[in-house]
């Protein structure tokens, strides 16, 4: 890396203050997730995207979904466009894949709630 970074870890609500040096050594973390986050954030930042998808149900207008794995940050809006194209039918279970390999990221979009009718 060209320079050093001071970051706030977003992996959990602790929000550790991380320092990443030029050799990608991470300090200030309370757990291993912080090391991985720190390295990824200065090389190829990723995020989990959560949103909702239209569903034909008596209970709710929309079903919550997420990317199963973190996706490259710059793909967030492309992924939102795909999420907003689809709609679901009941029943839906937690973990059901609603879009496979979204935008070629290798991550699926999965449902995060059970909606039976």
């Amino acid at each position: 890396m060209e320079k050093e970074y001071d970051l706030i870890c977003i992996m959990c609500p602790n929000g550790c203050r991380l320092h990443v040096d030029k050799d990608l050594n991470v300090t200030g973390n309370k757990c291993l997730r912080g090391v991985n986050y720190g390295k990824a954030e200065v090389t190829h930042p990723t995020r989990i995207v959560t949103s909702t998808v239209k569903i034909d149900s008596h209970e709710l207008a929309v079903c919550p979904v997420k990317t199963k794995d973190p996706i490259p940050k710059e793909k967030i809006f492309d992924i939102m466009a795909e999420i907003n194209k689809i709609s679901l039918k009941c029943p839906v279970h937690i973990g059901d894949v609603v879009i496979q390999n979204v935008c070629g990221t290798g991550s699926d979009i999965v449902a995060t709630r059970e909606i039976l009718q």
Partner: protein
Amino acid sequence: MKQKDLLIIGGGSAGLAAAVSAYDAGVRDILIVEKGPFLGGILNQCVHNGFGLHEFKEELTGPEFFSRLVDEVKERHIEYVLNSFVTDLTKDKVVSYTNREDGFVQVKAKAIIMSAGCYERNAGAIGIPGDRPAGVITAGQAQLYMNEYGYLVGKRVFILGSGDIGLIMARRMSLEGAKVLGVAELMPYSNGLNRNIVQCLEDYNIPLYLSHTVSRVYGKSHLEKIEISKVDDHMQPIPGTEMTFECDTLMLSIGLIPYNNLLNHIGLPTSRSRGAWVNEHMETKLDGLFSCGNVLHVHDLADNVVEEAKVAGKAAAQYLDGKLPRHEELIKVEPGDGVGYTVPCEIDLANAEAVVPIKFRVRKPSKDVYLEFKFNGETIRRIYKQTIIPSEMEITPLKKELFTSNTGLLTVSLVQKEAK
């Protein structure tokens, strides 16, 4: 009148976890009364991730988190009623609720757990000068519309208050195509978690105006624009610092208040958290009435809510077994300098477990300080903190043997580290 061993008011994270822990401690005759159409409480609308790292050791979204709790309730066949609003509670522990099928129902309970969550401070509470148009909405209400009903409440949004719900909604509305123009925060620091400043504002280039407030609202029938101003040390707008933003929505994220009205109504003492006064077993001043979750004090983490609710559930079981006597000798717990409130407010050492967790919030962000626990004037524990902020609840476990007596006063204060 119906009879129940344990009645639980509210089926959110707190109510569900309390029910499961009471069941696992032997209580069988339990009823959860929930006013909404689903169990799970506020997490029904929290579709974002960031839950469960403590409780389930993985990162879950709100719905995934509450679904696990609901599964635990269903596995145990714990009884619950939905769409049922608790309207009253008496000192004899008679609980009244209403719903469409059964009409008005009264239940005499041997023990009660209060877990009704919290509500949002609204526009009326802060009296912003100017017009009173449509388009001014609390962030939690906007979140409900968005994440359960599928409505985007506006296209050009300004947010007042940097609480977590506002930050989460700033991202959510940006993702759905709205333009979020900025967030104004009265205090010189943010009230949200740092991670949310990063992933909800910075990721979407949304400016945060610290020490600013909305000084005027404009709009005939619908909101047209707002004016923000920088504030002075007394939180008053400074003339000449005005900026205006054309927007159709002003979202408020200006604080949560424990929804403790039912207990206030019967005159139970409250703590400075605005929730009930409780002891180390989450028992209020009324025998057999317990309180936990956001109705007791507002939590940042659902995991902490679950932890606290488990204590309340287990305590209710002990109470029903006649194993939670009240003793004369008590330790009072009070917030000292720099601390806003504590939970619990009292410790009955004879009943206490080996470790008593003391939960509190500091009043303002501080650096290079000690958290000082004094018992009857003597320091029994001191913890160094490089940084400490009001938006993160502190939990300090105190070992029972630190207390040299069953009576006295425990204080928690913030002490600045002396400069060398």
